[in-house]
């Protein structure tokens, strides 16, 4: 079986190389047969990588410890679900998953473009195949998933206990889907630069890919935060760890990109900026893989050091240099005739939002690589921790929230004073009122007051927009309220889905502010029967129950929670686990979540007599809203992605700009392929 995996990976590499040659030759020499053949090669490459993935999955499920990978990341007692997720627990498997996703997305892009974009698609597919070649080279020669052990061990080392968790099962794939799908818009951007077809065709053809990528990056970050919250047991969800930053930076740049492309679609401006952003987003996905896999920056998540670092760095530098060279080569054609006219215009709001997002990205990047820089320059490693990131990003986040309110309501080009008053009077009133109410309720931190007011302001702007649109429909179409609202969203899903995402971001932001500023913490060692308090809650430790299985042993504490009136609310069961194979303790946190606050109980220690327990308890206000905001972002993205007839027509119009000769070629190619 392992030989089959190796063979499949070798064939995939050959097919990827062939597809590039055939695509470029076919386009240059006007030989559509070759373009069709390249497409088939891409699909075959995808099939080969799929075979490799299936082989590794089967080996994991059958606990075939002759494979080094299986022996390192699995064991015979590991639950089946985690045997499946062990595919991405280690380096070789992660890269294999990456390559598989890339092969799938490239195949889908090849299918979508079998008639569309006849002159750019072959180049875009060649770029994607080029990226696949890099990963396939790694899998074939540097970090091989199907290497055998000289001596077959009787038992595997088991999966890291921290990864034996359902969030860990879905967090890495989400993030990888987000990472890898960003390469499709990148490839079409690169193809636009190569071919000189620099209109917004590449943006429109890949808009869904960009949203898809953003969606999964959002999910990946949220799942990761949720995993940290539930598993790591320190009461927080984000530590500005290099690995977290690596996932956060592409999200920031994709967010900027999704906004700035609207300016190009609408006003034919910012071409260089958009091409740069998508290049940056792609580069950051590679950088993210590089820093998690190279061990260059020590991190709490710190993965095994490996020989991958230099290869990744070389690839990253090659991609960056060639892309930059292309941008410079085309710079004359990328000049835009249009210009900004006024600060009070939507394009200005979008531009400033872009600057802030890229600024945050830069700050995060700087803080992440500073230890390496300082060591190289001054010979001493200087690190910056979470305080650095919080201090820089907190004010920038406020600026971003403010622009989130302004951007959607302000007019393109320029806005009149009347228009400003009409659009913003009600939201400003809502924001100011919220601030006053919060201050009256006893909040004094200026940051919290500003954040709450701005948040309310943004939600106010969205409500005004919905109301305005709904009323317009009611009057023009004579529809009842509910129907007008539904139709409004259905007919303009991109716009109103975007608003829902904005509300989600604001709600999550409020959750982050509340949980960062008002968290309280109590640490206590207590005997069975004793109680202690946190906030308005009283916690009483009732005793332990213990369970032993061959896979893990656990001690579960029962903690009775009493409300302010002395009535029992619930019994919580934080636990201490001990994984037998890994000889590793782990903590199972108990969380009671309400919209107002989360009670988070960690069993920090058990003394040997089994009578005393040490608890660490956090009371975190509003953290519920971080996850609720995440759900709203998901809902909004689903609305945005919903198929829309009008949009399809718009894409068709853009793409029909290509000359009739192109179309003939496309028809030929399509006929040959079907």
């Amino acid at each position, binding site marked *: 079986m392992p030989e089959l995996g190796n063979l499949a990976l070798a064939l995939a590499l050959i097919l990827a190389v062939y597809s590039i040659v055939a695509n470029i030759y076919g386009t240059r020499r006007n030989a559509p047969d070759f373009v069709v053949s390249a497409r088939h090669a891409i699909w075959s490459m995808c099939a080969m990588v799929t075979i490799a993935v299936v082989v590794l999955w089967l080996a994991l499920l059958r606990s075939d410890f002759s494979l080094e990978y299986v022996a390192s990341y699995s064991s015979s007692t590991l639950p089946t679900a985690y045997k499946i997720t062990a595919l991405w627990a280690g380096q070789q498997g992660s890269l294999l998953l990456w390559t598989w996703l890339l092969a799938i997305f490239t195949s889908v892009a090849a299918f979508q473009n079998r008639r569309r974009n006849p002159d750019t698609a072959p180049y875009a597919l060649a770029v994607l195949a080029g990226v696949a070649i890099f990963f396939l080279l790694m899998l074939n020669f540097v970090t091989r998933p199907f290497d055998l052990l000289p001596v077959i061990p009787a038992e595997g080392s*088991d999966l890291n206990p921290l990864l034996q968790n359902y969030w860990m099962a879905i967090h890495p794939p989400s993030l990888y889907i987000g990472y890898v799908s960003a390469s499709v818009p990148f490839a079409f951007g690169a193809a636009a630069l190569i071919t000189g077809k620099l209109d917004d065709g590449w943006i429109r053809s890949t808009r869904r890919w960009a949203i898809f990528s953003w969606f999964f990056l959002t999910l990946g970050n949220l799942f990761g935060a949720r995993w940290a919250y539930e598993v790591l047991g320190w009461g927080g969800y984000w530590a500005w760890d290099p690995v977290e930053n690596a996932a956060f930076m592409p999200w920031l740049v994709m967010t900027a990109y999704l906004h700035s492309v609207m300016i190009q679609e609408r006003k034919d401006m910012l071409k260089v900026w958009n091409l740069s952003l998508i290049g940056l987003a792609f580069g950051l996905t590679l950088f993210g893989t590089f820093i998690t896999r190279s061990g260059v920056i*020590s991190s709490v998540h710190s993965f095994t050091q490996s020989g991958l670092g230099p290869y990744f760095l070389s690839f990253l530098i090659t991609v960056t240099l060639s892309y930059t060279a292309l941008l410079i080569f085309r710079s004359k054609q990328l000049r835009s005739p249009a210009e900004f006219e006024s600060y009070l215009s939507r394009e200005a709001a979008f*531009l400033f939002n872009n600057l802030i997002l890229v600024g945050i990205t830069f700050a995060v990047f700087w803080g992440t690589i500073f230890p390496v820089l300082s060591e190289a320059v001054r010979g001493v490693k200087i690190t910056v*921790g979470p305080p650095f990131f919080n201090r820089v990003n907190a004010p920038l986040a406020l600026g971003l929230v403010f622009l989130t309110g302004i951007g959607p309501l302000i007019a393109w080009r320029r*806005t009149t004073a009347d228009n400003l008053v009409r659009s913003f009077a009600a939201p400003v009133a809502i924001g100011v009122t919220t601030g006053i109410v919060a201050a009256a309720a006893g909040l004094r931190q200026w940051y919290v007051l500003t954040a709450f007011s701005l948040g309310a302001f943004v939600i106010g702007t969205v409500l005004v927009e919905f109301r305005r649109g709904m009323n317009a429909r009611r009057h023009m179409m004579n529809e009842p309220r509910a129907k007008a609202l539904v139709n409004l969203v259905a007919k303009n899903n991109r716009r109103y889905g975007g608003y829902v995402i904005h509300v989600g971001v604001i709600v999550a932001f409020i959750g982050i502010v509340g949980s960062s500023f008002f968290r309280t913490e109590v640490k206590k060692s207590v005997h069975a029967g004793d109680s202690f308090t946190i906030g308005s809650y009283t916690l009483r430790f009732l005793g332990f129950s213990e369970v032993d299985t061959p896979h893990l042993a656990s001690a579960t504490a029962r903690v009775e929670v009493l409300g302010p009136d002395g009535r029992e609310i619930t019994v919580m069961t934080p636990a201490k686990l001990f994984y037998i194979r890994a000889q590793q*303790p782990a903590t199972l946190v108990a969380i009671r979540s309400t919209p107002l606050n989360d009670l988070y109980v960690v069993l920090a220690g058990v003394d040997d007599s089994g009578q005393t327990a040490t608890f660490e308890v956090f009371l975190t206000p509003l953290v519920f809203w971080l996850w609720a905001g995440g759900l709203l972002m998901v809902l909004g993205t689903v609305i945005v992605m919903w198929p829309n007839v009008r949009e399809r027509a718009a894409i068709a119009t853009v793409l029909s700009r290509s000359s009739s000769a192109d179309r003939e070629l496309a028809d030929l190619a399509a006929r040959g392929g079907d």
Partner: protein
Amino acid sequence: MQTQRGFCIRICSSLPESRRLLAHPAPATIMTRPGNQKMNIRPRFFIGAGLIILAIGYLIGNAMRTTSEYYLTVTEVAARQSELGAQALRVAGRVKPGTVNWDPNTLTLKFEIVPIPDLDAAGAPIRPVVATEPVSFRVVAAGEPKPDMFAPGRDVIVEGKLGAGGVITATQVLTSCASKYKPKQSQ
């Protein structure tokens, strides 16, 4: 904000009535404006963008000054002991077996850290050519639960300050959690 708003209202009200009504114009076709105004606006945009970039630069610089910590190995701490004073440190080292003392009642963890040995290509520790004085520092971490992964012989990062007598008062002890585990061989 005040100046920006003032600026725009002035521009807008100086336009003829007919142009002011074009709140949602069709794009692209009516882009041209009187030349002298166009000349004014581009530089002003660069001023706005420049101000944002400067503000971000200032935030980064300011935060760097107040939050940076030295990240040192145990050997480096020994070499620079005299100059570290009250500087915030992160020290990477290995927990010396046989020195761990954990009191769950006061949540106090005491141990000694020693340098992490360099490994050669085969993964065996490299012995220094010149025999050097073995370096170690005592660490006292109070008020934090013992991390799950903490164990004698593990690599840790200690965050804190170096006090008198070579004792590191730690605010946090981080254990690095490699994604690959080798089960401990019974000794």
